[in-house]
């Protein structure tokens, strides 16, 4: 469904060398502290995590364990107190279009039409009108927003707004997509539909995605890896490889979530999180 248009696939920074790079993204001994002196809060304590291109990494953990902080560091909004965050072996710089970001609240621009919102990134980067229009049309059609292109964001439902925020990030052809609880504000049904759509995007583009969620079920359904974090100070408790996202065939989302394997994995992750709560 959501594959890039042919003219777009060419400038995608994928390569034979990159495909097998296990350290495509690397957090190395990352420490993030907020405040100074007595009021220093250590949000992340020596986080180390690497993953390859094409992975769908889901981060779960109790509130305040540093998930957002981790993502913001990779996005470039925060600088490490110590340690490093690298993409393709190079330390990440300031925020840029190579790392698309989707927030819990869509953060769209209500003064721009749906189409102009989707094309905001290419327009800022000085991409030509024709090329921008082509990319935007492609993603809007695939996200089911094409009929709404002349509308304004406040005329869309919550789910449509979040789809538009994802389209906006994808229109830049980022090599990494960072999502911070993107479906947290949606109702259960819309949320499952969005999960299916995002899964489709990932399957067809091979995009590398870092995805933060409070829903263990969502993480186990979407992720190739589920990273479980513990709070105060934020640490990685365990990284679990999950098979469901890569399973062949267009299986029904309810069938997958109802399967014994899925339930067992979900319970395992949940018991890890519960284990922390009882300490």
């Amino acid at each position: 469904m959501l594959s890039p248009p042919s003219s777009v696939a060419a400038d995608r920074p994928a390569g034979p060398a990159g495909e097998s790079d296990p350290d495509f993204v690397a957090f190395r001994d990352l420490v993030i502290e907020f405040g100074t002196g007595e009021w220093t809060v250590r949000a992340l304590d020596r986080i180390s995590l690497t993953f390859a291109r094409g992975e769908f990494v889901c981060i779960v953990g109790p509130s305040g364990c540093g998930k957002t902080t981790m993502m913001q560091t990779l996005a470039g909004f925060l600088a490490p107190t110590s340690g490093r965050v690298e993409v393709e072996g190079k330390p990440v710089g300031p925020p840029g279009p190579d790392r698309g970001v989707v927030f819990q609240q869509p953060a769209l621009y209500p003064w721009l039409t749906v189409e102009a919102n989707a094309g905001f990134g290419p327009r800022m980067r000085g991409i030509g009108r024709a090329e921008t229009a082509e990319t935007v049309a492609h993603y809007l059609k695939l996200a089911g927003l094409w009929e709404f292109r002349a509308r304004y964001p406040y005329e869309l439902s919550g789910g449509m707004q979040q789809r538009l925020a994802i389209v906006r990030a994808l229109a830049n052809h980022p090599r990494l997509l960072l999502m911070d609880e993107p479906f947290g504000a949606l109702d259960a049904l819309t949320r499952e539909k969005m999960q299916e759509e995002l899964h489709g995007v990932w399957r067809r583009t091979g995009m590398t995605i870092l995805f933060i969620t409070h829903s263990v079920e969502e993480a186990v359904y979407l992720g190739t890896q589920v990273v479980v974090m513990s709070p105060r100070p934020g640490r990685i408790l365990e990284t679990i490889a999950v098979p469901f996202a890569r399973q062949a065939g267009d299986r029904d989302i309810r069938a997958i979530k109802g399967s014994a394997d899925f339930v067992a994995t979900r319970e395992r992750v949940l018991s890890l999180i519960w284990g922390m709560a009882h300490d």
Partner: protein
Amino acid sequence: MATRSPRPLVWPYTVLSVATLLGAWTLVTVEGWVSPLFMPTPLAVWRGFFDLADSGYNGVPLGWDVTISLVRVFAGFGVGAVCGSLLGLAMGTWKGLDAVADPFIEFLRPLPQLGYLVLLIIWFGIGETSKIMLLFLTALPVTAVAARDGVRGVPEQRVQAARALGASSHQIFWFVILPAALPEIFIGLRLAIGLVYATLIAAEILAGSDGIGWMVFNAGRFLRADYVFVGVILIGLMGVALDRALVLAERRIVHWAGR
């Protein structure tokens, strides 16, 4: 575009209330319950309006009084609001400038305009300069504070999203911060036009030789209640028109405000 929900019919009530007032006015004046010295009949006001429109007041045509008042409003409000909004945008963007300008703005804002009119007259004389300066100083702080608060109120995530989409600082200002602050800027403009207009009328009464405010005051001194009524009604209608014009512009330009 957005579907409009069926609104209850309200205009008959508006017509009814205005008609009631006119009726009461006619009754008390025609029956002579109130002396015409205090309150002329509606018909006398109507005649007074045509008197003034035909031959002017004290040799000054009514059209001139209205025009000169509007010119003062537009000059003072226009320059003051543009400067104030730009200053506010800059103050919201640069903390240093805010620290420098804030004490003056905060001092000027609650200061009654007529309190320093005398100073302006001493400095600039009784002519147009002091009046337009007064209106400029009236519009400036209100619009500056609104624009600054507008910039400060831009949600952090909107800026973060723009940065992650590849926008430069300049682009973020023009394409994110400025539009995001526009609804607040418009609130400032509406506050300012009301203040400027009220200040102008008072200034014309205190230190004028023409203008609609001066005309009303002067007619009052000669106990021409009919002319005073014409003037007051005109002042009211012009004020409503100025505000409506801004509301219309606001609805067109910041259609997303509050959504």
